[in-house]
């Protein structure tokens, strides 16, 4: 099996899973009219995913995909998720510079003359623009009573 075929099969598999979740979930909706559209969309999705699989099996599509560097993207996703989760506990003013330092270093920045001003400057920017101008309640962290 070609690698590109595999990716389309993974896509189709995820689509099947989502469609089945919505189809089965639609049975618990009390009003029949409210079930119609989700079911129509879920069935259409299943049809599309099936055509995608069939076209791939018959080699009608010859798309080639490039997933190189995806490990960097996945690491960044994990770093962002950790950044947001930690913000709940210690607040965004603490986690933002840490995230910036960590991610900039991870992506290859080694100059402390850049790392420190960017990390600290962003906190000042968040305070002035988001807190003062736009009155956004930036999370202060449950550990600090925020």
């Amino acid at each position: 099996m070609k690698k590109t075929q595999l990716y389309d099969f993974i896509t189709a598999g995820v689509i099947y899973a989502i469609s089945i979740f919505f189809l089965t979930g639609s049975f618990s909706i009390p009003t029949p009219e409210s079930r119609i559209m989700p079911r129509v969309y879920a069935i259409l999705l299943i049809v599309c995913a099936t055509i995608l699989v069939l076209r791939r099996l018959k080699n009608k599509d010859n798309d080639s995909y490039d997933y190189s560097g995806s490990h960097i993207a996945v690491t960044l996703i994990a770093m962002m998720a950790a950044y947001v989760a930690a913000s709940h506990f210690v607040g965004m003013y603490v986690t933002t510079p840490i995230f910036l330092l960590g991610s900039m270093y991870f992506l290859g920045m080694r100059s402390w003359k850049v790392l420190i001003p960017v990390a600290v400057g962003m906190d000042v920017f968040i305070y002035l623009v988001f807190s003062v101008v736009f009155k956004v309640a930036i999370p202060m962290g449950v550990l600090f009573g925020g």
Partner: protein
Amino acid sequence: MLESLLTVIQPVNLMWIVIGSVVGAIIGALPGLTATMGVALFIPLTFAMEPASGLILLAAVYAAASFGGNITAILIKTPGTPDSFFMVMDGYPMTLKGEGRKAMSVTTITATIGGVVGALTLLFLAPPLASLAIKFGPAQTFLTSMLGITIIIGLSKGAMLKGMLSACLGFLLATVGMDSVAANLRFTGGVLELYEGIPMIPCVIGLFCCAQVFSLAASRKKQIAIPNDAVAGKTGLTLKEFFQHLWITIESSIIGTIVGIIPAAGSMVACGLSYSEARRQSKNPDLFGDGAPDGLAAVSAANNAVVGGSLVPLLTLGIPGNGTAAVFLGGLLIHGMVPGPDLFSQHAEATYSLLFGLIACQFVILVIGLFGAGLFSKVTSIPNSVLVPLIAVFTVLGSFAIRGMLFDVFLMILFGAIGYYAERSRISMAPFVLAFILGPIVEKQFRRAMMLMASGDTGIFTNPLSLFLLALNILCLLTPFINEIKDRMAKKKEA
């Protein structure tokens, strides 16, 4: 109208025009960042603002980002946005000849003219068109919303199946939350944060900004280096040269505006048409592709005229002309402004302010292009190792700002991951976003139409307007199939 004009020239709104234009131009100039991303990133910031100011800011970002891509396209042969591809053809050869400054002057002045023509068309064409929309009932509104989606699916070049898949997924996820007709909770899994549905802004930021951040990181490119002498040449554009290019500029602006009005036709089509027309009319057609100022003028004017044109169907019928306009629709909706005739009556001040703001920002773009090209080209030298984390923080703040929930930020990251995977798998997310935004409207209007039919009004889907819209929907869906069959037959004949 006069009130709106006065609103635009208030210092605070002029400030937003300048900020939006400068940041938009930077976003457009940075290869990898697009106008769609810029608008998506700014929507949360406008939430706390007056609707007029918010929309002016978004319009400035949209217009300036469309222009910003020209800077790097001309100076370093790297289109900042996909739409700036055509600027490379004659702009970069001019830079190589040592006429970088002149090329920047040509693109700036002609883009300004194009932008003004597009905005004026929007100002005068949108209100009468919107008054037509008042005749639309539930069935017609349903079919019109569907039309926007079928057009975008149909134009998912060579990947119509994936376009349909993307749209269906958008529709399906739009059903999460409280059903607007019968008030049933659907697919929330008991999660309180989903009772009002999946929030639109984190979804849009995730798909268009966060996904782009992941792509930039994965690309491993360090930065774009711009030679110091790129903006070279003693003179800009002389008055004589300006008048030589004026006719083709106006003509291309009109082409760009008309193409912009046609949903999903987009900037590439407008630039292509204008370029070939300019070449046809030129006394030196051989110079095209080798540094012809006429060619650069034509594509620059058309590219910026598309912005105003694309907002015509958006403001009047709720049909976005392109992906950026679809995100712009999200910006309108968070301010409670639903496209259609109400926009020009109930929300007249904000709407006309948006239109005047769009004209005003063209003049800021003029200043940026004539005097700031060198500076903007330096901004693009920011290393990706700094740019990527900074944008990542902005996506987090933007998705948090609307409801103040970290849940939304996690959703944004999830949609970012989906967007990244989709981009790599060549699945366009534009149909998804459009279906996600229009999904609730489509379902509500469809069910209202069904109720009317059940109550005996059987003609709502068979009156001439409905039949016309239905035929358009079918035509848009079938066109790619017909084209594919034609291509196959042509290939068979050749064989």
